[in-house]
């Protein structure tokens, strides 16, 4: 069932439809069908760690790490600024379609990248303190640690809170605006940190 939001603040009114109220499409905060691929990924991850062989671990770490990097860069530097400039109805429509998917995608790619990466590092010996590029490995821990704190403490709560706000019978545009700004800014910071990840990972892979 679709709901309607209160009319936007005066500064946003120019972009709003003339009738004032904004229709919010119905959506699931956590798309239940999306839980199936998530479960498949996690099952595959457990198997990859259990067999402890190079190819499956490399696959999970590289494929999901690349997805994590690309999503953060795209969201932070391409989609985020576009989202911020859209009219309020377009932004709401985009948000109700994008954010529920992000609720599932981000924790899945992050968990798969880190768990497979740790196991891969153990298998190759790159996480050992005697590894010749150990300084770069520690630098990657620090960058990932910073990203984790920002993503878990700011981005993910804002992502879920904006969806709950949009589910209300009378969503508050000011709250949606505040949470979306938080989401877009933190996505930008994560995008910048992902550039550091790219530098570090290509250096480690190059020896």
């Amino acid at each position, binding site marked *: 069932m679709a709901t309607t939001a209160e009319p936007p603040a005066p500064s946003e009114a120019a972009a709003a439809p003339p009738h004032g109220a904004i229709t919010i499409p119905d959506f699931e905060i*956590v798309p239940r069908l999306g839980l199936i691929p998530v479960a498949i990924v*996690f099952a595959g*991850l*457990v198997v990859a*760690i*259990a067999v*402890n062989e190079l190819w499956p671990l490399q696959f999970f770490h590289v494929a999901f790490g690349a997805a994590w990097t690309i999503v953060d860069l795209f969201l932070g530097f391409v989609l985020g600024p576009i989202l911020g400039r859209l009219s309020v109805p377009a932004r709401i429509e985009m948000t109700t379609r994008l954010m529920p998917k992000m609720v599932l995608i981000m*924790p899945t790619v992050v*968990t798969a990248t*880190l*768990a497979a990466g*740790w*196991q891969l590092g*153990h298998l190759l010996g790159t*996480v*050992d*303190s005697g590894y010749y590029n*150990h300084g770069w*490995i*520690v630098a990657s*821990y*620090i960058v990932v*640690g910073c990203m*984790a*704190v*920002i993503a*878990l*403490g*700011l981005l*993910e*709560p*804002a992502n*879920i*809170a904006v969806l*709950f*706000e949009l589910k209300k*019978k009378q969503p*508050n545009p000011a*709250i949606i605006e505040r*949470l979306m700004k938080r989401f877009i800014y933190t996505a930008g910071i994560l995008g910048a940190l992902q550039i550091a990840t790219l530098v570090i990972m290509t250096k480690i892979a190059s020896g």
Partner: protein
Amino acid sequence: MPPVTQFGMASLALIVAGGIYLAAHLPQSVPLTPAIILLALSALLLAANLLSLTRVHDFAWWRFLQVGRWALLAYAITAGLIEYAFLRNGLSGGPLVVLTLSLVVYALHVPMLIAFTVARYAEPQPS
């Protein structure tokens, strides 16, 4: 509202720092005291956050608990997968205990932050 998000981020930063400290020294034996201090401070911030929330009047506890339990389930699964990777690598002894307790703080504090951010904008009573 108390600074729950700020405390939560500080708590996460402390366990991340402890985890990096331990991971940077593996597989050599490493003094655990710095990691234990960081973990204790992180757990203290978690407790302080919960305590400060209980003192808020008209807080939407129904929404906090509704969101919190599902987020707890999700983050317990991710923490479990990371713990599995630690066990599979033969991590044991003090570092395993510290990292496991760090994962417990992570699996409690992240759902709490999510539930708080949702509940702070919710009605105190379900409509």
